[in-house]
């Protein structure tokens, strides 16, 4: 099986995802992800410490809309799945299908960012600005930091789509897509923490 795929033009290693070899090359990127996880963990700790310090301002229960959060969660989870399907198309060397899945991923991710920006604008219009209370400072820092990561991830997907169109599905481009996939799935993991630590306890 591996001999057959070696001769193909795109020649992705056979065996599902060939995790061993790929993750060996991704060690540096993995170290970055772990250090980013530590940054997020400390912002989470800050939020938990400050989460009840409303300073007489709006409370979490008044501000959070569970339906919107559920929508955001679903968009991000579906985008993780579509990125998974994009990875599978990449391993088959199918550039057209890979691009379709990436377009879907961008659409879902952009929907997530749009919902989040809408949420932030609504809060700010209602006077719940980051400087209103310690709770709101910590909330905007944590959720905004994640939203910023997702936005950067979207730009990154668009850049690699450009590379796919111009350079084709070459080994270096495939290697970059593999690391982008790690980043994208990592962001979904951080979001699990955000809805479990920020939104659900806030509404409860």
């Amino acid at each position, binding site marked *: 099986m591996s001999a057959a795929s070696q001769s193909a033009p795109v020649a992705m290693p056979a065996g599902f*995802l060939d995790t061993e070899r790929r*993750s060996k090359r991704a060690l540096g990127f993995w170290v970055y992800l772990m250090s980013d996880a530590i940054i997020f*963990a400390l912002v989470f700790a800050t939020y938990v*410490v400050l989460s009840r310090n409303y300073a007489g301002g709006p409370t979490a229960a008044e501000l959070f809309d569970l339906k919107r959060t559920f929508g955001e969660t679903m968009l991000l989870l579906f985008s993780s799945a579509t990125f998974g399907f994009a990875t*599978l198309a990449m391993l088959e060397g199918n550039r057209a299908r890979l691009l379709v899945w990436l377009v879907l991923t961008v659409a879902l991710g952009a929907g997530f960012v749009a919902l989040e920006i809408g949420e932030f604008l609504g809060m700010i219009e209602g006077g719940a600005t980051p400087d209103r209370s310690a709770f709101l400072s910590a909330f905007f820092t944590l959720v905004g930091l994640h939203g910023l990561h997702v936005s950067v991830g979207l730009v990154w997907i668009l850049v690699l789509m450009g590379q796919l169109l111009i350079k084709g599905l070459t080994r270096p481009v495939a290697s970059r897509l593999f690391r982008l996939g790690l980043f994208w799935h990592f962001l979904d993991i951080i979001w*699990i923490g955000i809805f*479990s630590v920020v939104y659900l*306890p806030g509404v409860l």
Partner: protein
Amino acid sequence: MSNPTHGMAPGLRIYLTGFTLALILTAIPFGLVAFEILPRTPALLTIAVLAIVQVLVHLRYFLHLDLKHTPRENLFALLFAAFLIFIMVGGSLWIMFDLHHRMM
């Protein structure tokens, strides 16, 4: 093990399994809060446990981590990060809530 996914490409099956598990593990905590099924403390505990399980599901099915194939240095990086997070987050919360308690 004969299920409708039998015969699918292994990659597709892995992603769909992870996706289905993640959907269930997301629906339960949102349902708990939306329909106010449990009192506050058990609900918070359930949310925390389900979140940890879902993180493990994502690591296993989306990031393809497993103890056999993932290189040891990657697992060490992950364990070291988890250790640092445990010390720094656990320590911060311990100190801050103890302080809060003493100032009440």
